[in-house]
């Protein structure tokens, strides 16, 4: 008796006065036989950015298995034995296999977070036709949220799983039931998932690290910049809880990107706010950024621990553990300190003050902020043009040797341009903006590899100099030296390929894209 066909689910109307019994819904000649009854808890997980959901999957912990379900059909893609039910955990904790492999293809950095747990009370039946042949399984599921309060069912589902060869009969039957006054329309698994998340209060908290603004072409730039700053402030606030709970390092990363984006736009778009207030807030945002600089550097080092350790011969790996333990310890202290700051009255009052400043709709004094009332598209074109030209000018000036400081400075120019493009992207044609950003990203990748290697080299060098003359310093020095050699080679590779990467950005095709951007923003 193989039930290979797709399950058809119908939802009982929430306001249904009567709850029909399964046998009351059947056509003449058919009957139901009770099979079993039971209840189970289902715990839903996903990342903060809903990576699994975005890829059409639901991650559900049922009993001692972690199941990956297809959001369209509700059928299991794969599952893995997993007995724990933590509030959050890194994907690396999942045992090796298909489940982990698929999940890692969605995200390597983000932890899985427990979104909600529901309890399902199920009554199962067999449906027999007039020959008393089993043609389908029927389950009546009552769903309630598991939480501190007494669970109240929020949905009742009838699910029909036809046996092979009986799909048509069950389809027709389900179609006739859809018109039953107590039963709602057919409910796909995706709808059910959305309903569960809605009841758990998760559905409205979708988060994206990308800036998605819909700017108005002729709106005063003051209004548009405020819109961006409000969005970045929201992003910072959305990430605070994840930083405090130490769910994964991406919370701090996104927090810092949002902060940097705000600072960069304030710095590049001059004359939009009154100078005195602007200077004050710029300074405060800068200080805020500084507070997590070292913490982020530690995160980056720890994220690369496995890759770095495995790049060394096995004999040299154990002595690296001590080094990474020190980094982890220092990171814990820095994290604690930063969290204390996030909880401090001074931070809270800064946020309140900052929020009040960026939500103030009235235009500033034109004498103090002469550009505030200019149309957004005008300012956008001028700013992008300036940042792009500056990037080209600085890039072309870089010597054949491509020194550390030259590449560091160019990386900052790239970021500035990138933030501008992303901020103003809704004012420009998608067909021009997307490839322009892609070309810039390729150059940024080269520079990012270079700078990351430089930071690691500095850190390793400091470590090498600070090695105590106890234990076994020779091995520690050898492993640190080994790592420095590998990273140095990577850095040199990035340095040697810089001119090629820059030429690719400074080519005719990219020029054409940027020319189009600054000469033909989309019409109102």
């Amino acid at each position, binding site marked *: *008796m*193989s*039930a*290979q066909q797709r399950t058809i689910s119908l939802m009982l109307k929430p306001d249904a006065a009567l709850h029909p019994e399964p046998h009351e819904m059947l056509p003449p000649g058919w009957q139901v036989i009770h099979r079993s009854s039971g209840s189970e808890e289902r715990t839903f997980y996903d990342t903060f950015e809903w990576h699994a959901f975005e890829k059409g999957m639901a991650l559900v912990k049922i009993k001692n298995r972690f199941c990956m379900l297809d959001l369209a059909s509700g059928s299991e893609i794969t599952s893995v034995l997993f007995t724990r039910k933590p509030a959050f955990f890194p994907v690396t904790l999942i045992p090796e296999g298909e489940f982990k492999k698929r999940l890692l293809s969605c995200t390597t950095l983000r932890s899985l977070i427990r979104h909600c747990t529901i309890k399902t009370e199920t009554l199962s039946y067999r449906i027999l036709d007039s*020959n008393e042949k089993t043609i389908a399984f029927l389950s009546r599921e009552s769903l309630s949220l598991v939480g501190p309060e007494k669970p109240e069912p929020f949905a009742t589902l009838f699910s029909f799983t036809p046996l092979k*060869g*009986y799909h048509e009969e069950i389809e027709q039957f389900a179609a006739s039931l859809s018109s039953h006054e107590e039963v709602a329309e057919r409910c796909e698994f995706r709808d059910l998932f959305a309903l569960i998340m809605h009841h758990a209060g998760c559905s409205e908290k979708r988060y994206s690290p990308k800036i998605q603004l819909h700017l108005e072409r002729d709106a005063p730039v003051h209004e548009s910049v405020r819109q961006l700053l409000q969005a970045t402030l929201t992003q910072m606030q959305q990430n605070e809880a994840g930083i405090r709970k130490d769910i994964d390092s991406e919370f701090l990363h996104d927090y810092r990107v949002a902060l940097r984006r705000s600072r960069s736009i304030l710095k590049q778009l001059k004359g939009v706010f009154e100078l005195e207030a602007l200077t004050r807030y710029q300074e405060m945002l800068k200080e805020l950024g500084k507070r997590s600089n070292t913490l982020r550097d530690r995160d980056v080092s720890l994220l690369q621990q496995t890759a770095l350790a495995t790049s060394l011969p096995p004999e040299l790996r154990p002595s690296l553990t001590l080094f990474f333990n020190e980094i982890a310890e220092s990171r814990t202290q820095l994290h604690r300190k930063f969290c204390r700051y996030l909880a401090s009255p001074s931070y809270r009052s800064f946020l309140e003050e900052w929020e009040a400043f960026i939500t103030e709709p009235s235009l500033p004094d034109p004498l103090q902020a002469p550009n505030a009332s200019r149309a957004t598209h005008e300012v956008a074109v001028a700013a992008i043009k300036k940042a792009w030209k500056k990037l080209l000018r600085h890039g072309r000036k870089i010597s054949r040797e491509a020194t550390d400081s030259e590449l560091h400075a160019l990386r900052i120019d790239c970021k500035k341009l990138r933030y501008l493009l992303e901020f103003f992207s809704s004012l420009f044609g998608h067909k021009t903006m997307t490839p322009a950003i892609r070309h810039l990203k390729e150059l940024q990748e080269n520079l990012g590899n270079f700078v990351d290697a430089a930071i690691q080299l500095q850190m390793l060098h400091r470590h090498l100099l600070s090695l105590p003359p106890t234990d076994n310093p020779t091995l520690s020095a050898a492993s640190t030296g080994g790592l420095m050699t590998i990273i140095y080679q990577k850095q040199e590779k990035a340095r040697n390929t810089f001119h090629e990467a820059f030429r690719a950005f400074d080519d005719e095709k990219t020029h054409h894209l940027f020319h189009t951007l600054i000469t033909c923003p989309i019409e109102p």
Partner: protein
Amino acid sequence: MKTIAVYSIKGGVGKTATAVNLSYLASLSTPPALICDLDPQGASSYYFRIASSKKYNSEKFLQGAKKIYRNIKATDFQHLDLLPSDISYRNLDIELSEEKKPRKKLKKNLEELGEEYRYIFFDCPPNLTLLSESVFAASDLILVPMIPTTLSIRTYTQLQDFFEANGLDGSKIRAFFTMVEKRKKMHSDILHEYRNHEGFLSQSVPYNSEVEKMGIYRAPLNAVHPASVASKAYSALWTELQALL
């Protein structure tokens, strides 16, 4: 995939009971299994309480694996499916004769099902026609149930002669005795005579009124009364067959 045709020129020898019980046993030991009811009387479909879809007929059966697959139905037993018969199967021979290579048709149509099933059983109608020849070509083993009587022996000989005359592989044929009543002298004598005969299985199935009641149970006897004498014999027969396949 292994294909087993339960076949006899003679009717009333227990072909359907054999096909139903052996396919059930196959679904337990080496799942999944499929039983194809090729007899327009549809006895094995009836035993499993399955009727073909209204749109299904002999034409669809000859159209190929996709049409066949769409009409396969799950039985009430896990890992055992059935392709039901339809009354239009009475015309299968005529329709087959209009095909290009009628004797290879069944084999070709069922090839793709090999990915899904470990065993396919054919419950064949009692005659010797073009459909029978197509079944012979598609089968790895032709299992012939025989009541230990002279008439049954005669049909077995006729089958062997047919294979020889048509250049078919006679080594596929395996006979076994059903409805054996050892108290009857003729049964006892024939059983003794064919005990070590080439092409005959050593296991026989005794006469058991429980087998007739399958029409009431509408389920394999081995599922309903696995401890009955006939069920035990079918189990032993399946063990013997598995060793051969």
